[in-house]
């Protein structure tokens, strides 16, 4: 499971998540402890000027992390970084892609750096990310 993604320039297989439901948002909020009502309370979201509730940024970050750990191994993560771009809305389908950009040794273990992206069905980028995994 972990040995096949160690070549610089190598693409990781794309994966889709969703369509995401409001229940997915709520489930993540319950698991994470972030209970900001803007992600589940329709009236609150509208009073703040939004058309409806929107996803927790850390949910799509968590889906991206799942993509990485399924491909590269749960115990191998050494660094995981995300930059949030577009918001994610109910019924969005997210496509997650990654590419190995560096393969090297550090702290006496082989490692890869991967560049990551989460895009919405519109083509808009929800997250740009990067991660380091031991291989």
């Amino acid at each position, binding site marked *: 499971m972990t040995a096949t993604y160690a070549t610089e320039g190598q693409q990781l297989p794309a994966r889709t998540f969703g369509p995401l439901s409001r229940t997915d948002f709520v489930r993540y909020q*319950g*698991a994470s402890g972030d209970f900001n009502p803007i992600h589940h309370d329709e009236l609150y979201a509208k009073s*703040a*000027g939004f058309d409806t509730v929107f996803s927790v940024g850390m949910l799509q970050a968590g889906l991206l992390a*799942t993509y990485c750990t*399924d491909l590269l191994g*749960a115990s191998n993560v050494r660094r*995981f*970084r995300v930059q949030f771009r577009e918001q994610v809305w109910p019924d969005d389908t997210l496509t997650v892609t990654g590419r190995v950009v560096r393969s090297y040794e550090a*702290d006496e273990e082989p490692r890869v750096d991967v560049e990551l992206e989460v895009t919405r069905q519109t083509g808009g980028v929800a997250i740009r990310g990067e991660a380091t995994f031991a291989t």
Partner: protein
Amino acid sequence: MANKDAVGLEGPAFDLMIERGKVREFARATQSRNPEYLDEAEPPIPPTFLVTVAFWQPPEAAQLFDKLDIDNRRLLHGEQEFLFTGRPPRAGTRLTARTRVEEIYEKEGKKGGTMTFVVNVTDFHDADGQLVAQSRSTAIETGKPPTQ
């Protein structure tokens, strides 16, 4: 505008027990089917699991955020990073967490006026005092509410 005098402020240290049930719940909520998380007796934490400090931080830790004087209507989560000094910690580990305000800086936004960036860093030490993980969170206070 965020209070720049908050740089260097530190919240109280508090304990975070990594529990198997919470790890499995978090893995499910992030749509993982990985048996390393779901089946192992002492599963490793998922890469973003340490956001769950939100459950356990004492009120004084939340007050650190109040001292930043950020307008919540203009608040965005800009970036988030987790660093692990080795293998990620496993269920059954007790960590001590402590958050500090590391940096506050400004940038001119394209449409929203001046944006203020606030970087909060949380260090996680194990029972031996070893740094095992670090969370770096960048909040952005936009020049005006994001919906305008």
